[in-house]
C-alpha cells in the first residue's frame, strides 16, 4: 500500500501537483517560483522608466527600458548588415580571384581578410573568449599551487604574505605593467594571438587567481583528522592519499574559489578593456561614451545589461558544475 502511494506521489509530483495539494497551494508555489521574480522585474522596469525621464544629461535623456529595447534591436540589425557586407566582400574577392586566375594561370590569388568594424555581438564574443581563457590560465596555476601550499605548512607560511599582498591589487594597477611586459616579450612576425588579447588575458588571470588559490589551499589543509587517520591506517601512499582523500575532500572548497574567481575575472576584464582599449565589451562601452551621440547612453545601457546577464550565466554554469562534482550536498550552493 505504501509503495503504491509513494509511486503515486512520485508521478503526480512530476506533473507538478501533489495529490494532497489543493489547486490553491499549487498556485501559491508557482507564484513563489515565477510570480514574485516577475513582479519584482515589473516594478523595477516601472521605476526605471519613471526615473529615467527625470534625468537629463548633456547627451539627452537617460535611457529608459523602451530606448534600451530600441537600441538592442538596432544593434542586432547593425550586426546582421555587417555580416551581410562581410559575406558580400568575400564573394566579390573570390569572384575577382577566379577571374584573374582564368586570365593568367600563373597568378597566385591573394586572400584579404575583411576589416569591418566589430559589432556589439563580435565584442561579446571577444570578451567571452578572453574571460574564459584568462580564467582557465588562472585555474591551471591556482589549483595545483593551492594543493602544494595546502599540503605543505612551511610553503604556506612562506607564500602567505605574498598572496595577501597581491590579492587586493586592482586590475588597473597591473594593466600598464602587463602591457609593457607583453610588448617586450611577445615579438613575433606572425603573432598567433593579438597583443591586446594577451594583455587582457594576463590581467584577468593575475586578478582572479587569488580566490581559487586561497580556497584550494584552505580546502586541502582542512582535510578532517579522521579521514587522515583512515589514510594512515590503510597506509595509503602519498600519491593515493592526495588523489583519493585530499582532492575529493577539497573539491567543494576549490569550486567555491573557482566561482569567486570567475566573477572577479568578468568584472576585471570589462575594466581592463575600457582602460586599455582592448577589443571587447569594455571597449564598446568606452567607444560609445566617446562617440557621444544621442543613442550612446541607450547603447551603453544595453551593454550594461548584457554584461550583467553574462556574469549571471557564467555563475550559474559554475554552480551547476559545482553541484555536479561536489559530494557535499549540504554545502550552501546558491
Amino acid at each position, binding site marked *: 500500500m505504501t509503495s503504491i502511494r509513494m509511486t503515486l506521489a512520485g508521478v503526480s509530483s512530476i506533473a507538478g501537483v501533489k495529490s494532497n495539494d489543493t489547486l490553491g497551494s499549487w498556485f501559491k508555489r508557482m507564484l513563489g517560483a515565477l510570480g514574485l521574480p516577475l513582479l519584482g522585474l515589473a516594478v523595477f522596469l516601472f521605476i526605471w522608466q519613471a526615473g529615467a525621464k527625470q534625468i537629463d544629461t548633456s547627451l539627452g535623456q537617460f535611457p529608459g527600458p523602451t530606448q534600451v529595447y530600441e537600441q538592442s534591436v538596432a544593434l542586432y540589425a547593425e550586426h546582421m548588415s555587417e555580416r551581410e557586407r562581410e559575406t558580400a566582400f568575400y564573394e566579390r574577392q573570390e569572384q575577382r580571384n577566379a577571374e584573374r586566375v582564368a586570365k593568367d594561370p600563373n597568378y597566385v590569388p591573394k586572400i584579404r581578410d575583411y576589416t569591418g568594424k566589430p559589432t556589439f555581438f563580435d565584442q561579446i564574443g571577444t570578451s567571452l573568449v578572453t574571460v574564459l581563457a584568462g580564467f582557465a590560465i588562472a585555474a591551471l596555476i591556482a589549483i595545483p599551487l593551492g594543493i602544494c601550499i595546502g599540503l605543505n605548512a612551511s610553503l604556506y607560511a612562506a607564500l602567505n604574505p605574498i598572496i595577501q599582498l597581491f590579492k587586493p591589487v586592482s586590475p588597473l594597477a597591473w594593466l600598464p605593467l602587463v602591457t609593457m611586459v607583453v610588448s617586450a616579450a611577445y615579438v613575433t612576425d606572425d603573432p598567433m594571438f593579438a597583443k591586446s588579447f594577451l594583455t587582457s588575458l594576463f590581467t584577468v588571470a593575475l586578478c582572479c587567481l587569488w580566490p581559487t588559490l586561497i580556497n584550494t589551499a584552505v580546502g586541502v589543509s582542512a582535510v578532517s583528522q579522521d579521514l587522515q*587517520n583512515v589514510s594512515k*591506517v590503510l597506509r595509503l601512499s602519498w600519491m593515493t592519499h592526495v588523489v583519493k582523500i585530499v582532492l575529493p*575532500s577539497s573539491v567543494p572548497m576549490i569550486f567555491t574559489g573557482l566561482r569567486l574567481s570567475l566573477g572577479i575575472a568578468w568584472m576585471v576584464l570589462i575594466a581592463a578593456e575600457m582602460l586599455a582599449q582592448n577589443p571587447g565589451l569594455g571597449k564598446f562601452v568606452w567607444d560609445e561614451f566617446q562617440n557621444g551621440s544621442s543613442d550612446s547612453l541607450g547603447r551603453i545601457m544595453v551593454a550594461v545589461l548584457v554584461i550583467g546577464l553574462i556574469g549571471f550565466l557564467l555563475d550559474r554554469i559554475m554552480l551547476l558544475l559545482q553541484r555536479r562534482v561536489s559530494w557535499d550536498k549540504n554545502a550552501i550552493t546558491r
Partner: protein
Amino acid sequence: MTKHLELTGVSIEFPTPKGSFKALDNVNLKIARGEFVSLIGHSGCGKSTVLNIVAGLYQSTTGGVVLDGKEVNEPGPERAVVFQNHSLLPWLTAYENVELAVKQVFKGKKSKAEMKAWIEHNLELVHMTHAMHKRPDEISGGMKQRVGIARALAMEPKVLLMDEPFGALDALTRAHLQDSLMEIQKDLNNTVIMITHDVDEAVLLSDRIVMMTNGPAATVGEILDIELERPRNRIQLADDAQYNHYRHEVLSFLYEKQRKVEDIGQHRSQKAAADNTQETAPAKKQAQA
C-alpha cells in the same frame, strides 16, 4: 609465553601550552588471540589514547606495544580501526569505501573478481547488501557504523580496534548491532579491543573488561573476566545472577571506587555534550536495577 598482543609499561605525555600532560602511566595489558576485550572508564581518562597507541596513531612516551613479537610504531591495516564517528569517505558509496581498503590491503593478492566477492561478502556480514551503492549521507547512522565495521573486517586485521563504535546510536540500533557483532565474532573469532561507556555492552560482548582509573596518569584499575557462555542472549542474561554480578562489579568500580569528582566538561569542552549523555546512560540503568 608471550601473548598475541602486549602493552608493556605504556605511558604517554602530551605537550600542551601549560607544560606536558601525562595522560597514561604504566599501562600493562596482555591479550590472547581471539579475545574480546572492552576498555571502560570515565570520559577523558585515556581510553582513546590507549587505542590510538595500539593503532600506531600515537607514539607512547615510554613503554611499547608488541603484536606477534613485532613492535608497533606506525599505523597499519593489520590493526584496523572502527572510528567513533564512522569516518567513511563521504564522496564514496558504501561499496567504494570498503573497496578502497580492500584494494590497498589485497593489492596483487586477490584478482578483481575475488576482491569484488570479498567486498560484497563483508558488506553482507553487516547486513548492508541492500544499500551498498548508497553514499554515507544517504544512509542512517547505524548503517554508516556498519559500513565502518565492514571496512575494518575486510582488511582481515590481526586486531580489530573499536572506539565507542555504537556510542552515537540509539539503544535499539545499538542492541541490534551488538547482536550482529557477536554473530560475526562467533565466525571470525577476531582479536578485538573495544572502548565503551555502556556497562551492559561491555558485559554482554567481552571476554574481559579492562577498567581504567581516572586521569591524569590513568592506568589499568581492575580487570574482570567474564565467564558467561556463548552464544549469549541479552534477554536471558537480563535475569542471570552471574551477569548481574558482573554488571555490579563494573558499576561499583566506576561509581564507587573511581567516582568522578571533577567536572567532565573540563577535559574536552567540545565533546562534553556528547559525553554527558553517554555518561548518564549507565547511571539510569543502575537506578532501574
